[in-house]
């Protein structure tokens, strides 16, 4: 009943508690993980079928196709990031909890990456085999996706937070977020292409890493502020 009894509040526990709860929720609704992965595999598979199964042709477009499909799969999964929490009132509880909101947002984004970005990254080399990606490109593809997909989740969280209060998000989220995704796409595919052509990729990776770090610092703050605005509406 006194101030001292609440001294045991710990932001770290709030972070891990939210992480555990959201992972448990995803585990109970496994379709949330399967959907983006299914979209990713189907979309990539359609290219050889729809355009040309020629190995030379496919190996030229492999990096671009894999990256574009991974990006769209992430985009499709963003809608649900805060929507459930908004509908059942637990988003309000997150906002008025005695912790910095960006920490809790970060924990939700981490869950999003663990269930979409990470599986996409792990699946990509398999699909790259089908797309005849040159052997040298595999390592780079994996690293660029490993650096790029968390950035996609982080930036996407800002858009998801801004649109969560709207009754119909529709195409707005895509319009808001897609322009911000384009630099990641350019440097991601650029790096894979460069390795395939035997060029150095250090610069590409450094820029992808820098974008990840900036997003890691800024995006949770921006998404937190956006959530407060959305709750106000």
């Amino acid at each position, binding site marked *: 009943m006194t101030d001292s009894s609440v001294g045991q509040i710990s932001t770290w526990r709030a972070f891990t*508690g*939210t992480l555990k709860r959201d992972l448990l929720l995803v585990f109970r609704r496994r379709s949330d993980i399967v959907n983006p992965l299914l979209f990713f595999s189907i979309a990539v598979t359609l290219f050889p079928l729809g355009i040309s199964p020629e190995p030379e042709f496919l190996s030229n477009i492999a990096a671009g196709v894999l990256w574009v499909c991974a990006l769209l799969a992430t985009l499709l999964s963003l809608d649900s990031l805060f929507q459930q929490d908004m509908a059942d009132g637990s988003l*309000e*509880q997150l906002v008025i909890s005695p912790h910095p909101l960006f920490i809790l947002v970060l924990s939700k984004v981490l869950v999003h990456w663990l269930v979409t970005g990470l599986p996409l990254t792990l699946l990509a080399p398999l699909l790259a085999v089908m797309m005849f990606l040159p052997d040298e490109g595999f390592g780079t593809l994996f690293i660029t996706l490993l650096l790029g997909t968390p950035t996609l989740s982080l930036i996407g969280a800002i858009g998801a937070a801004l649109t969560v209060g709207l009754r119909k998000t529709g195409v707005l989220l895509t319009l808001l977020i897609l322009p911000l995704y384009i630099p990641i796409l350019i440097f991601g595919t650029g790096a894979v292409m460069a390795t395939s052509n035997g060029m150095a990729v250090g610069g590409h990776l450094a820029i992808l890493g820098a974008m990840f770090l900036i997003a890691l610092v800024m995006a949770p703050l921006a998404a937190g502020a956006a959530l407060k605005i959305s709750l*106000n509406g």
Partner: protein
Amino acid sequence: MQELLSGQNLACERDDRLLFSELSFSLSCGDVLQIAGPNGTGKTTLLRMLAGLLPDYEGEICFKGQPVLEDPERFRENLLYIGHHPGIKLNLTPEENLRWYQALYRPASAEQIHYALARVKLTGYEDVPCYTLSAGQHRRVALARLFLHPAPLWILDEPFTAIDQGGVKEIEQLLADHARQGGGVILTTHHNLSLPAELKVITLGQSRQQKESFHEKDSQLNTEQVTEQDPFTVDQRGEHD
């Protein structure tokens, strides 16, 4: 008694409609404050404002004499807010739901959580997913937090929604106990509260109604303008101690 929460000249406008203005109140330790009024007069908005969910409001809210905006973390540590939506995840069990809340505030052992669930008559439902429970039981899961979280200030939006009569009595008793131990409660409800302690009531939108009936006679008067003048009344229903 020490002052717990106070509001000075609070005003709120939503969609170009003035809900209330010049609203001042003071909640001391041991008080139960009921926000009353017809639907759509801003009860929930006022509670959300007090809980810190509406950042842009007019007026000043002080917690223990200090403006809330100066130290929001301290205020939030001392606040338990249960909103219009109970904040319960349907795919989780009541125990898992409460465990998350306790991770945000104070950790609780499984025994403490089971005790809290027993107090809201949910023994035997600890491990079933919440989507199998009824609306009243969802509300009860949320109310179980009252037994787990030792915050002095409770802000409860319609805590009795979908709760049966026996449950309402128990919660009233709980509110009275909390007030007697020096806590403060602000709630909205359409029930007639029967509390052993003194109950303060703020009625929103009352004068508007009175003025509206007046307005029918004199069609030149604008109701919007009238509400700005005196949109609330505070009366103290001293129901013995």
